[in-house]
């Protein structure tokens, strides 16, 4: 039997980024096929290619054994492919019915098409247990039902292959469970489902086969029954070059920052940060491990004052920060908390600025850089030159636009800016993402140096090696909550991998039982 969908050597490049490289994939008809990988592994790009949103640079797609040319979403729809996007493609002030028929109205005047759609939707709702009030306005529906509208849209257009891109990201656990029951029903009716996710639990619970993507490449195909969470976690993260950092035993002293029961909800009302408590001591590096997207970013944002918390409190520099008495990022900086954000392009730099300008961002109101009216360019330039020499930034040209430095050198500019302010606490996210090996060593040395001078460092990284090499103590986050804490000496990849997949406790229970 031919495969429902088969990808052959699909490659796609965006400028310098190779988003997909020689992807091959075979999905048997009537199965649920999981595609798993970290954020940025290229899953969404691949699905956008299948749905005709982008055209692949090379390679082709076969549906039911026949080669299809998908150049637009219309082509994909004609080939029987439907997609439920991560961010719903719904017109919010339209009714469910209007959203479903958009693009498949069945005639120039709506009246007839709407009547037929109403009947057809009732049939679909009945067949797949997708009950919904078709006259409801979409923006008034809960997220789970909005997603159901997306599924109905695809089925109404006769989709036999359904792609779901991170479908549970916005759902409550109950809604997610219901979704998986729907997917099961679809599968029983012969629909082929492609499930894109970075959550191992979902893959293990619902798929027949699973493919793993890493850094734009398809690295493994497995039958779900013959694999395990640990196996997949390792494939997702990949084995990397061992990093070693020379450092002495940590000498942790007094608590500089403590957080109790921090929680945060996103705009959809989903709890992204769940009762996180932690203590950060002077002279230690606390590593936060976890598969990306499990609340680490939210934790950094809340601690640094970028987004306010919804519950809990932070004690820092003699202040108590709560939801009612928040402090913004500038106020936190004044209390000597520095922050190197995870995404240096979006949050760490203004890429159109020259290096010496980017080097004072966040501290630009400091009297050091300001005269009576104008900023003191000479001071800024001198300081930038000094730092560039000290941190080995190349090229050492303070007038070069930050966009034109390599990733490693951009990161050095950001880290230097924060570290040179001599903060008490440094929050640092993904310090070496997209940074070349040489620069990684340099950055790691500087972080350890800061620790040895009695400062506290909170390190968030999705690179396990980095966490293990740098941290003195490790906290593991999963699904917005802290699921484990251990001394770095006791940490190994296996234990951490299990904790990151939240499978550690289950296994322990299994052993003791």
């Amino acid at each position: 039997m031919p495969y429902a969908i088969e990808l052959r050597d699909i490659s796609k490049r965006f400028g310098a980024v190779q988003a997909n490289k020689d992807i091959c994939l075979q999905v048997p008809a009537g199965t649920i096929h999981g595609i798993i990988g970290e954020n940025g592994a290229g899953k969404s790009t691949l699905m956008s290619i299948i749905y005709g949103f982008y055209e692949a640079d090379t390679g082709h797609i076969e549906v039911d054994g026949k080669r299809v040319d998908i150049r637009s979403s219309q082509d994909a729809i004609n080939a029987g492919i439907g997609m439920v996007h991560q961010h719903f493609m719904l017109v919010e002030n339209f009714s469910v019915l209007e959203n479903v028929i958009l693009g498949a109205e069945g005639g120039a005047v709506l009246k007839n098409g709407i009547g037929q759609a109403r009947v057809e939707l009732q049939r679909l709702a009945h067949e797949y247990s997708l009950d919904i009030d078709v006259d409801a306005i979409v923006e008034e529906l809960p997220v789970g039902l909005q997603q159901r509208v997306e599924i109905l849209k695809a089925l109404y257009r006769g989709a036999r292959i359904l792609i779901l891109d991170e479908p549970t990201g916005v759902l409550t656990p109950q809604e997610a469970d219901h979704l998986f029951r729907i997917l099961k029903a679809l599968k029983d009716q012969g629909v082929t489902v492609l499930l894109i996710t970075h959550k191992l639990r979902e893959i293990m619970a619902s798929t027949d086969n699973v493919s793993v993507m890493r850094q734009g490449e398809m690295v493994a195909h497995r039958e779900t029954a013959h694999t395990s969470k640990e196996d997949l976690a390792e494939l997702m993260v990949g084995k990397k070059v061992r990093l070693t950092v020379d450092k002495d035993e940590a000498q942790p002293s007094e608590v500089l920052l403590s957080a109790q029961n921090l929680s945060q909800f996103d705009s959809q009302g989903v709890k992204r940060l769940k009762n996180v408590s932690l203590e950060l001591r002077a002279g230690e590096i606390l590593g936060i491990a976890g598969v990306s997207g499990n609340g680490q970013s939210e934790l950094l944002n809340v601690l640094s004052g970028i987004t306010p918390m919804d519950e809990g409190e932070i004690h820092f520099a003699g202040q108590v920060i709560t939801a009612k008495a928040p402090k913004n990022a500038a106020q936190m900086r004044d209390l000597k908390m520095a922050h190197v954000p995870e995404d240096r392009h979006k949050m760490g730099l203004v890429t159109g600025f020259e290096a010496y300008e980017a080097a004072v961002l966040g501290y630009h109101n400091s009297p050091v850089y300001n005269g009576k009216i104008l900023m003191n360019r000479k001071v800024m330039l001198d300081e930038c030159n000094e730092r560039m020499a000290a941190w080995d930034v190349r090229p050492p040209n303070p007038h070069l636009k930050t966009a034109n430095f390599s990733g490693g050198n951009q990161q050095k500019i950001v880290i230097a800016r924060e570290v040179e302010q001599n903060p008490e606490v440094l929050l640092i996210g993904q310090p070496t993402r997209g940074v070349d090996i040489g620069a990684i060593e340099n950055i790691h040395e500087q972080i350890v140096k800061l620790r040895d001078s009695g400062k506290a460092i909170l390190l968030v990284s999705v690179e396990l090696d980095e966490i293990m090499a740098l941290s003195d103590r490790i906290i593991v986050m999963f699904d917005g909550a802290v699921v484990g804490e251990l001394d770095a000496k006791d940490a190994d990849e296996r234990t951490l991998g299990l904790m990151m997949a939240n499978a550690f406790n289950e296994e322990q229970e299994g052993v003791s039982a």
Partner: protein
Amino acid sequence: MFETLILMLDATMRVSTPLIFAALAGLYSERAGIVDIGLEGKILGSAFAAAAAAAVFGSAWIGLCFGILASVSLAMIHGFACITHRGDHIVSGVAINTIVAGLTVTLSMHWFGMGGQTPALVGDARFLDITFPFADAMESVPVIGQIYSNLLSGHNILVYLAFVMVPVTYWIIYKTRFGLRLRAVGENPHAVDTAGISVSFIRYRALIICGILCGLAGAYLSTAHNAGFLKDMSAGKGYMALAALIFGKWRPVPVLLACLLFGFLDAVAVRMQGVVIPGIGEVPVQAIEVLPYVLTVLLLAGFIGKAVGPKAIGRPYVKERA
């Protein structure tokens, strides 16, 4: 008293007509997500083209065709800048307004040499008023007869067309496939794109309709309401139509009511000219002319709730990188 009211309502209809055309034009454009501050320029361009063609060919209908052609061309320039090249809608619209304001006068001087005017239109070169059957006979009947003969009868064809366009627009926007897609494109173009429909094509078609309606507004000004083109004769009607559009929350019937209200205030302003109110004295005309704008600001500021426009308005559609 009743007669005065009839006369003022009659004037209201005449003054509202270009506002209705222009506001509906803006409705198509903005519902599709394209901000159209260039309504003013399109009206003026059409007014000039219509008057010039009518003067040359001696036919108001040929004038109307040229007016629409000019206005649609301007709409297409706006589309090329905003849709194809994802330019800023406001900048493009203001550019069109500025160019047209200068170009109409320049061309008019070059062609007609009458100091920026076109020759006065007479006979078939103008849209003339239509008198309904038995209008004269009915005039003596109180109330109903007066409404029939003095208010409903005696307007030119474009006035009636403007009022007919309101239910037609309602039907197109809410009851047809094109209308559904048009509204969707203004709210969430990504949804339209993923449904396999071209966002650009729908927006261009919306702008063509916008151009036609602005063309009607302009032709009305120069070949029906007046008898020839005058420098800057659109006199802010495009902006007032935009205000009516926002005031009417981008819905055809409320937009009509807003246009009528503005038209009525305009008629009042004319009526109040030179009238001395006891205790206050002569009311400056400007004080009344400013009312539509003051009203829009005040009402939007609190009395009618938030005017929520189409969500994707003014934002060029770019497929996002995943």
